[in-house]
């Protein structure tokens, strides 16, 4: 008996492809597997490391306008003051910028 091989229906193939793609893109409400969580953590760590190598963010805040309303000047030791130079009380703020 000879077997005849019919060519597939070409109209059905695109429809089948669409159905396959729709199934693959459907939402997955199940909990992620532990392995995928580990991969996500690794990706997050890589992203953090990459971010550290990027140029620092540009400043987004300009000085509060209030400070500019006060007198400022420089002391003999090279430090700077804000307020009246002959104010009776001096408040020294020892701080690191970081």
């Amino acid at each position: 008996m000879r077997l005849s091989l019919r060519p597939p229906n070409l109209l059905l193939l695109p429809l089948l492809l669409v159905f396959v793609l729709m199934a693959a893109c459907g939402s997955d409400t199940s909990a992620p597997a532990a392995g995928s969580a580990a991969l996500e953590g690794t990706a997050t760590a890589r992203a953090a490391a990459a971010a550290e190598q990027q140029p620092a963010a540009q400043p987004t805040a300009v000085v509060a306008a209030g400070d500019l309303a006060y007198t400022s000047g420089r002391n003999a030791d090279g430090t700077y003051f804000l307020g009246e130079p002959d104010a009776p009380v001096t408040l020294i703020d020892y701080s690191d910028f970081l």
Partner: protein
Amino acid sequence: MQGAKQEILASHVAAGDVKIIFWPMLDLGPNSTNAAIATFCAGEQDPAAFWRYHNTLFDNQRSVYLANRDYFLTTATDLGLDTGAFGTCFDGDSVRDLVETLDQARRDNNVGVRPTFDVIGPSGEAERTFGSQPFAAFDALIQAQLP
């Protein structure tokens, strides 16, 4: 002090009772020093620019931690400073030597906690406090020192 600063400014500085001095501590790596150098270089152009630069860095501390040279120069440009003069200052030794000298002076004065505050009255005696404090705490120290 950043949180209480605006109240101190609006009350005691505005009244002429208090002047504030910022004294750099260089404890946390190269960018502690670079940030101090940058701020003092801003002051070289204008004392008011020192405070504008100081406030900008404190408002953007996370960026300062990761900052490179361009960050400090861009900050200077954004604040309207002469970038060329700023860059020369930033790269030079004069201001670096100054901030390192100031840093050593505070160590010699037993200042180790970040931040530390000295409230100094007309007699020259200082009342020292540590860490972020509410305005009421500063107010009490200041009132005690006023003549």
